[in-house]
């Protein structure tokens, strides 16, 4: 067999906890690898033996059909064994601490643990405690790195690159892990990011992340290459701060008219599931500029790439 050292590439990290600490080269590596993996999902036999004998635990402390399914399909297409553990945070409060859970999982000797948790930093705590690779599938209002990577892949496919693009992210920035991960990823890749949303849902000092803040949606969208709408999650807020969904929609729903202000070839993204009529008008969500379904299929490819790149990286 030809030696693999030529052109050998790797993520020199045990875990993927966030995009904040990923370099441009690392992001490109994940996107390039994901691009190669896309082909597998088009085959009749959508499975390669690469991760045979590898165990992936999906540890979900927060309900999520999409992300969990996407990780599960990704793992299975690489022939890894997957185990899904659904735990509710309330049962955790009463009983087992995260440290106990970590020790228990470690004793079962999986290879990769994918964790979603309603508390920011839970994956970081887990990563310190166990030798397994940890992939953050969303922690509180902090990061959702695989979502941002699939967004970056989608943008790269549609726009040929990311550098220099004007990206507008609209919605509840304060409570959005998708926004944070995308800000880190996109600024690292050289995009100009504008955050837009109600003033009370813009987190303090967010400009220090190297972004522009705009509370007027029309101004924000003007000249944009990419318009990313966030899911309005009233249930995530500490207390319902915005007066009403109706008022929110009046100000921040992406309609065909607003989209006219963006560049002619602008694309519309949404992490899903969409609230039709709340943050995005149905005709825009289903319109020709919408790349929402590309995002979903890219999600599987990006997660396959990450599982592949992180597997075997345990020290």
């Amino acid at each position: 067999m030809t030696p693999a050292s030529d052109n050998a590439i790797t993520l020199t990290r045990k875990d993927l906890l966030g995009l904040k600490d990923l370099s441009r080269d690392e992001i490109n590596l994940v996107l390039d690898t994901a691009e190669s993996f896309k082909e597998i999902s088009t085959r009749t036999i959508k499975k390669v033996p690469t991760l045979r004998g590898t165990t992936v635990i999906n540890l979900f402390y927060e309900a999520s059909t999409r992300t969990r399914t996407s990780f599960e399909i990704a793992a299975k297409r690489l022939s890894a064994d997957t185990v899904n553990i659904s735990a509710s945070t309330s049962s955790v409060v009463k009983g087992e601490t995260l440290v106990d859970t970590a020790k228990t999982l470690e004793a079962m000797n999986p290879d990769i643990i994918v964790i979603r948790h309603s508390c920011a930093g839970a994956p970081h705590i887990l990563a310190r405690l166990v030798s397994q690779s940890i992939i953050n599938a969303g922690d509180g209002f902090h990061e959702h790195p695989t979502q941002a990577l699939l967004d970056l892949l989608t943008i790269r496919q549609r726009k040929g690159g990311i550098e220099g693009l004007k990206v507008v992210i609209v919605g509840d920035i304060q409570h959005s892990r998708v926004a944070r991960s995308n800000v880190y990823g996109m600024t690292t890749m050289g995009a100009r990011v504008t955050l837009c949303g109600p003033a009370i849902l813009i987190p303090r000092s967010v400009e220090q992340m190297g972004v522009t803040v705009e509370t007027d949606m029309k101004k924000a969208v003007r000249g944009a290459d990419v318009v990313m709408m966030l899911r309005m999650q009233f249930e995530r807020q500490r207390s319902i701060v915005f007066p009403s969904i109706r008022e929110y929609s009046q100000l921040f729903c992406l309609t065909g008219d607003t989209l006219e202000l963006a560049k002619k070839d602008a694309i519309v993204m949404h992490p899903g599931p969409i609230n039709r009529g709340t943050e995005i008008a149905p005709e825009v969500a289903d319109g020709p500029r919408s790349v929402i379904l590309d995002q979903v299929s890219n999600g599987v490819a990006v997660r396959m790439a990450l599982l592949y790149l992180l597997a075997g990286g345990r020290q």
Partner: protein
Amino acid sequence: MENKKRIVMDADRIDRSISRIAYEMLEDNKGAEDMIVIAIRTGGILLARRIREKISHIEGVEVPLGILDITLYRDDVIMRGKKPKMGETDIPFSLDDKRVILVDDVIFTGRTIRAALDALMDFGRPRLIRLAVLVDRGHRELPIQPDYVGEKLPSAFWEEVSVNLSESGGSDEVLIL
């Protein structure tokens, strides 16, 4: 190390080998019908194109050429910390019931071919698969033998056998490093 490098096949020998392989293939197959050439990325690609050209020259037909990346089928991919860079697999046609000629430049331990066979099975059910290589350097670790061989070149296990074809620059030659 530069001084230890020696040329073991020159352009003439390479061309004669490729011609012979092409003729043997056509003879076994009784023509080019249902024949598909699959190159193993990356070493097999240029060689497979040369073989296809020869067939076209002899028979006047273009046999389909596919490219197979075997990275994800390697048996050592998870064991090593570093991951080999992946290439694209490009087999835009069915392999069902076809006579597949798998092409690689050098056969060594046989593990690459094992991976390639597994990969091919995921693309369909060929009627048969034959293996063509330019150089057989020995040291097999699996019971796999090529059907068409340019030359058998005994080499030491630690040596590197390098096939260079002029399409990638330089001249046609096989070197032992």
